[in-house]
């Protein structure tokens, strides 16, 4: 068995890392911050993400596929690096766990409002743990199966073909918006997950075509966001979009089948799969970072400890508002990590080259 990731599965896995529940509120975010024809912003943000992927490509090329930890440890003292690893691991563990809690809070808007949210969140934590203990190759295989289980939902968008009105799009672009920068950052959070490809270097070889996989995954997620938001803009008016917090859920509840209606109840369950992978992605990255510090601890035990820490930490934010505040705060931090870490690595690699050349 080839012990490297395959191109196809890596593409799907990165797509699954990126996708999450942000899509449910994305048309609202676009309408609120960008105003008319806000769906165009999806492409702009996607381009910015591609620039960041370009930095990751440079790290991959300059580092010749070496692990980012190896690159850093070659030049920077472990006294500085280990606290940094721990800090990153805490950020990723809590962020990953928070994503699960956010999902549960949204679910409780229409089902199980009286059930303690932590009960449902812990169940998601157990599912994440099931994947984490099996390692990246099983995560990759599972991502593909879950991808097929959810991607068909895009076909549901055809249900709105009769209610889509071109007139709602208006010829004006980005009018009645609020704060482009804040909106852009909020939108960027929906694309996060691709930056974790930095930690896939040791599991890749030439046949993995890692960077190509990340770019294609980003194109896929852009298309999904773009189509969904575009249809939402033609389905709702701008003011409706500004007023509805989760327009995509309401769109799903609009769909009726002969035997079943209010399908958002069922289909929202399927969103658990994408959300699960966001959680798994971050906790897996945290595990990789911790493994460098605690080399003798078995990966399975590290995963259990991280899940316990993460899900204990997210018991603190109680109501949806607090969860969202935490998510916003940690999400902005993660955007910083996504952009700064590759630049830092490029600087380290250039320094290593200069030093190597001088020797």
């Amino acid at each position, binding site marked *: *068995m080839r012990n490297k990731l*395959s191109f*196809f*599965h890596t593409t799907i896995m990165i797509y699954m890392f990126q996708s999450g529940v942000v899509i449910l509120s994305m048309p609202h975010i676009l309408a609120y911050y960008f105003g008319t024809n806000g769906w165009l912003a999806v492409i702009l943000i996607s381009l910015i993400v591609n620039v960041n992927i370009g930095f990751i490509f440079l790290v991959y090329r300059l580092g010749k596929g070496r692990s980012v930890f190896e690159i850093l440890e070659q030049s920077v003292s472990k006294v500085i690096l280990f606290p940094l690893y721990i800090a990153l691991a805490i950020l990723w563990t809590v962020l990953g766990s928070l994503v699960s809690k956010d999902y549960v809070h949204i*679910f409780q808007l229409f*089902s*199980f409002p009286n*059930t303690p949210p932590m009960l*449902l969140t812990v*169940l*998601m934590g157990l*599912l994440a743990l*099931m*994947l984490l203990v*099996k390692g990246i190759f*099983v995560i*990759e*295989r*599972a991502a*593909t*199966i*879950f991808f*097929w*289980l959810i991607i068909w939902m895009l076909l549901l968008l055809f249900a709105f073909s009769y209610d889509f009105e071109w007139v709602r799009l208006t010829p004006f672009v980005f009018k009645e918006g609020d704060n482009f920068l804040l909106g852009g950052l909020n939108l960027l959070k929906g694309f996060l997950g691709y930056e974790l490809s930095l930690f896939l270097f040791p599991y890749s070889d030439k046949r993995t075509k890692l960077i190509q996989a990340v770019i294609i995954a980003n194109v896929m997620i852009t298309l999904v966001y773009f189509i969904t938001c575009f249809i939402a803009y033609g389905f709702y008016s701008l003011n409706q979009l500004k007023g509805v917090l989760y327009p995509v859920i309401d769109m799903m509840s609009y769909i*009726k089948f*002969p*035997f*079943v*209606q*209010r*399908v958002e*109840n*069922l289909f*929202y*369950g*399927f969103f*658990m*799969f994408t959300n*699960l992978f966001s959680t798994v992605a971050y906790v897996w990255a945290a595990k990789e970072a911790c493994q460098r510090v605690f080399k003798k601890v078995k990966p399975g035990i590290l995963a259990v400890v991280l899940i316990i820490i993460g899900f204990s930490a997210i018991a603190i934010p109680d109501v949806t508002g607090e969860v969202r505040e935490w998510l916003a705060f940690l999400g902005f931090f993660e955007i910083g990590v996504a952009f700064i870490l590759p630049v830092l690595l490029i600087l380290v690699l250039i320094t290593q080259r200069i030093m190597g050349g001088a020797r």
Partner: protein
Amino acid sequence: MIKGILSGNVALFHESDTYIVDVYGPAARAIEQSQTETVITGPHDAFTEQANSNLSLIRERLKSSHLKVIKLEVGEVAKSNAYILYIKDIANMDYVNELASRIKAMEIDTVYDTNMLIQCIDDNPSSIFPQFISTERPDTAVSKLSDGKVLCFLDGSPSIVSVPASFFEFFTSSDDYYQRWAIGSATRLLRLVAFIITITFTAVYVSITTFHYEMIPEHLLLSLTESRNRVPFPPLYEALLMETTIELLREAGARLPTKIGQTIGIVGGIVIGQSAVQAGFTSNILVIAVASSAIASFVVPNYVMSASIRLVRFGLIILAGLLGNFGLAAGIAAVVIHLSGLTSLGSSYLSPVAPFHSSDWKDVFIRAPFSLFTRRPSQSKSPNKIRNKMRK
């Protein structure tokens, strides 16, 4: 020599030489139809408990000098013979060697059946799902050999196992190849639909009637509430009661002679089903759901897989009864994660979906025309990937 005598042969001493003469001819069951893998068209013969007879059934269909047999001894006390069959230059020798080493490493007194043998050597013994596919049909066995798979069977067992196996392989039947390709393909898709119905139908009923009544359209809601208004139990208990009854009927039917088994089916299906609804124990819509998922479970051609799926269904019903659609989604996620982690002789159980091999899909989800079967399944990792060309 002692081993030969213990195996039923005669030792003939002549001067300083000793000859072992095979005069062993124990009473054996005649070659009959398989009870578990019946087909409508195609050959009807099935393996028996005699290893020599089984080997001859395969040799009859595969007159190749490349067909090789490895004989191994299994069981510290019973010393049964296990046979590994493969086609040289088509099967991957890594699989052959791995299988042989696992059989040799077995530490057990006695093994009575091939299905017992595989549980001792499969990759994940604690899993609900079978990881090696077993068959009683010589035509299926030969097709597996030509796919590059490795066969294994035990003397005294009518089952032959093929390794490595994939989850989706359990939904194929030799009948698919004897029908026209379009009918074979439609039947395969039907089986996959049946799989989805089996594991989710009752669970979705429980979930909707317990937590998500708003999902039922108005015109259906009326008949559903009418059928449920006399039932004193929550849908979870109601469903578990009926599912257990169905399982009792199935088990009773399987243990009794065929004629009495049919009577049990009638008594259970009609009398108990009808009476349970009239007595207000259960709603008639649940009876439809339970019966549909039971029928769908029997559409799965492999009995071992069918039994595994039925057990998983109970878990999903309980999760749906406790946590509604959330529980159902979590249950499905747990099953998929478990399946993703399984391997069969080291190769992925979910091949050809993960790892993704689109060229194999035409003999997994559909049964394409034979002229399109130009490659052996990638899971076999055969050194001879291309099949003989067929005229188009």
